[in-house]
């Protein structure tokens, strides 16, 4: 079949859906939505519609990036605007169907916003939501919009035009030139120029080459690759097919974590449908170009995100990075053949670049980093979720304009970018632009795009300890510095947060950290000390307070805090006294309560049960003893 016919069929299906006289309900059923209960909501909506004998189009879609609002559904009348409803529960289904679909009046109290024809009073336009207003969605274009298990939706919204353009007239050189001119840099985190990588892989003489997609996303707090795979799998498949055509490969592998079952399912479905349409397999679109994709499920080792370890893992060997000096994967990769390895997002944006052109891609971004970046916003922010912004957007814009700032009137303390390999940046650096080079210069990294915001209640020593605990466990054990060094750093940090820190510890952490960074084999070890090194660099006073004063200024580390009851505020209500699990509170009716500091286990129950109007229990830095009560 010719592409024009395929596209026509797809367009007809899509247009029919848009113009359908039936009401339509779109449910975000990516993993995040499902975890929040989207499947139950969908079932409840179905039942409500069935009871009322209403025929409606119910469509599943991927993640729209508004984590706070999950389960997130869209209801469209027949006619009228589409209304997004947030935090929908199965119990709300009846009301939504009755009010919005039957009576035609959207339920403003549960609505997030509206879009399309005919605005509704009291509802914000979706495009005006702060979380969306500042975004430029190129990679996430289809996420939360189309049905990710229907290739016709992808094609109808512009998908596969790039592949058609490529196989019907572009030479591999033209493609690589276009990608190079776009300035696209590897979105897996390292930022290697994608065009140059494609070009060098193509130039290695070989009859066989492979295209591999790194979907081994493993950073705590990062979920952008999963969202793309679940919400727009076809873009990755198309991007890889184009890459295969450009470098001269006929086979590709997607290395995806087995912990992402929905992504695996969507990818399997996407490749099967692409094959059915003649967009993959033998003689793609009649061009004579053959390309096939295999989905390989990784067993969940963090280190297998490293290129050489990933390749070994596909080969059925233990994933351990190969030490330098060694040939690049583009020269000697999978089964010793030249192999192109890019991240999910890097492949996903390729069709966009080839359709819209390198110049339009490069119109956004900074001098050396073009296009957009996807971040998972998590932590102490009003709006958490998945966002896409132009390279060069400042941390401040992301955190305050998009993220809505720090809730509960707390003060911003730090932002951690790049996952466990990244670094923590303080308020002074909030005007840093996000791109590969500028974040690295500040001591953090772009990494996979995780962004964790911390407020004044976060202990930076404890944060460093958390990330070291992760990298220490995920070290592959190959090189001595990473295997043993991260453990030493972790144990030192554990001692510091337990109040057993030694005055030499900061210097030793710096010395160990530098040696591990310099001497380790792979990126895991070379970046594992970053959380400790950057927190020492920007928050040294917190380390010193833990070590010298035995105080946790953020009041997090249990061994370095105390709970006290203010004699002025205590109303002797007996609540905390009764609730204390270790009977550490003494007092009686009409007798101000006092915490026995030697018995207290700093669980914080007293503070949480003290009625808000009294607010008599306070957590203070430092460890008191009974002697202090005297």
């Amino acid at each position, binding site marked *: 079949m010719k592409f024009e016919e395929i596209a026509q069929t797809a367009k007809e299906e899509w247009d029919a859906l848009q113009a359908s006289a039936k009401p339509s309900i779109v449910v975000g059923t990516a993993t995040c939505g499902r975890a929040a209960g989207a499947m139950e909501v969908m079932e409840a909506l179905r039942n409500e519609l069935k009871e009322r004998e209403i025929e409606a189009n119910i469509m599943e879609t991927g993640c729209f990036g508004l984590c706070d609002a999950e389960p997130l559904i869209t209801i469209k009348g027949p006619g009228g605007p589409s209304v997004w409803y947030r935090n929908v529960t199965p119990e709300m289904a009846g009301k939504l169907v009755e009010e919005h679909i039957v009576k035609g009046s959207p339920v403003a109290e549960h609505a997030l916003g509206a879009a399309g024809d005919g605005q509704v009073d009291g509802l914000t336009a979706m495009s005006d939501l702060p979380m969306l207003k500042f975004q430029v969605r190129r990679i996430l274009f289809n996420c939360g919009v189309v049905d990710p298990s229907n290739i016709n939706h992808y094609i109808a919204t512009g998908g596969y035009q790039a592949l058609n353009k490529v196989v019907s007239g572009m030479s591999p050189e033209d493609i690589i030139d276009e990608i190079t001119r776009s300035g696209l840099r590897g979105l897996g985190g390292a930022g290697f120029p994608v065009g140059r990588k494609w070009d060098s892989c193509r130039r290695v003489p070989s009859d066989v080459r492979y295209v591999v997609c790194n979907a081994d996303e493993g950073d705590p707090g990062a979920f952008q690759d999963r969202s793309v795979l679940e919400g727009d799998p076809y873009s990755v498949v198309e991007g890889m097919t184009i890459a295969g055509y450009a470098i001269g490969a006929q086979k590709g592998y997607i290395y995806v974590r087995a912990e992402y079952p929905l992504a695996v399912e969507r990818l399997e479905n996407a490749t099967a449908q692409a094959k059915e349409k003649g967009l993959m397999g033998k003689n793609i679109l009649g061009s004579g170009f053959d390309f096939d994709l295999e989905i390989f499920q990784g067993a969940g080792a963090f280190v297998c995100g490293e290129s050489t370890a990933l390749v070994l893992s596909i080969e059925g060997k233990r994933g351990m990075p190969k030490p330098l000096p060694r040939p690049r994967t583009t020269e000697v990769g999978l089964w010793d053949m030249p192999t192109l390895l890019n991240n999910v997002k890097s492949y996903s944006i390729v069709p966009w670049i080839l359709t819209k052109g390198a110049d339009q891609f490069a119109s956004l971004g900074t001098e050396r980093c073009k296009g957009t970046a996807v971040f998972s916003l998590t932590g102490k922010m009003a709006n958490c979720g998945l966002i896409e912004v132009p390279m060069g957007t400042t941390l401040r814009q992301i955190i305050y304009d998009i993220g809505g700032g720090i809730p509960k009137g707390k003060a911003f303390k730090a932002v951690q970018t790049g996952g466990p390999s990244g670094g923590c940046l303080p308020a002074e650096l909030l005007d840093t632009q996000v791109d590969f080079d500028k974040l690295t210069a500040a001591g953090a990294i772009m990494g996979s795009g995780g962004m964790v915001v911390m407020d004044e209640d976060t202990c930076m020593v404890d944060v460093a300890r958390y990330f070291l605990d992760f990298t220490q466990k995920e070290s592959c*054990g190959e*090189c*001595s510095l990473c295997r*043993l*060094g991260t453990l030493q750093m972790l144990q030192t940090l554990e001692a510091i947060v337990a109040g057993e820190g030694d005055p030499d510890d900061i210097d030793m952490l710096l010395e160990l950290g530098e040696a591990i960074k310099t001497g380790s084999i792979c990126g895991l070890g070379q970046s594992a000390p970053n959380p400790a090194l950057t927190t020492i660099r920007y928050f040294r006073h917190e380390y010193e307070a833990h070590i010298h004063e035995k105080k946790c200024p953020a009041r997090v580390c249990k061994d370095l805090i105390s709970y006290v009851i203010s004699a002025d505020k205590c109303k002797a209500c007996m609540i905390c006294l009764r609730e204390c699990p270790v009977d550490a509170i003494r007092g009686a009716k009409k007798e101000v309560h006092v915490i026995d500091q030697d018995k207290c286990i700093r669980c914080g129950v007293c503070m949480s049960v003290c009625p808000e109007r009294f607010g008599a229990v306070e957590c203070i830095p430092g460890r008191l003893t009974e002697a202090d009560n005297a």
Partner: protein
Amino acid sequence: MLDEIKFAIDGTQIKANKGDTILKAALKHGIYIPHLCDHPDLEPFGGCRLCMVEIKGKGLSISCKVPVEEGLEIITESPEVNKVRRIAAELLIASHHVDCLECARNTDCKLQDVASYIGIEEGRLKRLKRVIKDLPIDDSNPFFIRDLNKCVLCGICIRTCGEILNVGAIDFAFRGTGTLVATVGGKPILQSRCVSCGECVARCPVGALVPKNAERPTREVSTVCTYCGVGCGIKLGVRGGRIVRVRGDVNSPANRGNLCVKGRFGYDFVNHPDRLTSPLIKRNGAFVEATFEEALDLVASKLTDYKGDQFATFASARITTEDNYVVQKFTRAVMGTNNLDHCARL
């Protein structure tokens, strides 16, 4: 002839063969660079990070993987080099059982070499936490002990088993500090595919793999293994008239230092009380010691009773190929039969 490459280590001009690594070339010239995971028989691993050197103009690099190049200038001692390898050595020692006097490898230990070269300072070492493993010792194999508590995870045993033996009985398992050299399913080594050749034991740089009942020999005797016709060159370690160790002779063209389980560990027959030291002839229902002349005369006289297919020969694989040739010649030409076999088809 091999191409020769000239380069400099610490300002001294050195000639090396093309393809040699910096570490190999340095060691050949008697220049010690600390190392643990490298072994001349095996592919480079690059895990211990101890052989770090500075290559002028290129920065720090491990020396076990970098081939020599014309004009390279290598610096083995610099603050940058020391910063990394000292920490690596300290980390290894902080996690090692340093009961050296009780270790069979004492004074023959690569970790001791590293420590004494780099110079371990007690004050610095004390800053680190002691992280010692407490795993059960695997003594299932009759010939050697696996004490993973002493293992430095250099991977030499794994590469030996894979690259030299093609057996692959062991590999790395688990992650992080839990990383271990393990058999499939973590079973005792005797229940694995291990063929007990002891090649890993011979190469283990520390006391993680040691022969059972190891005694240090006072001298070595070069000879040929008596087990089969391959004729492996062996070095018998002798102590007080007893053989206490056997190792392969690296200069023997037959085995280039490698041995099988019999050659390496099967030497207790030499001093065994049941060993036959003279021929026995059965007289009146009981074996009686005899001389070789008596025994040969007896056999020769009995052989004359038979001819052709009444007769068959069964030869030993423990005699040389040449001797086996003579045996078959005798069987065919003298005894006139093709009834001939030997025991090397096990």
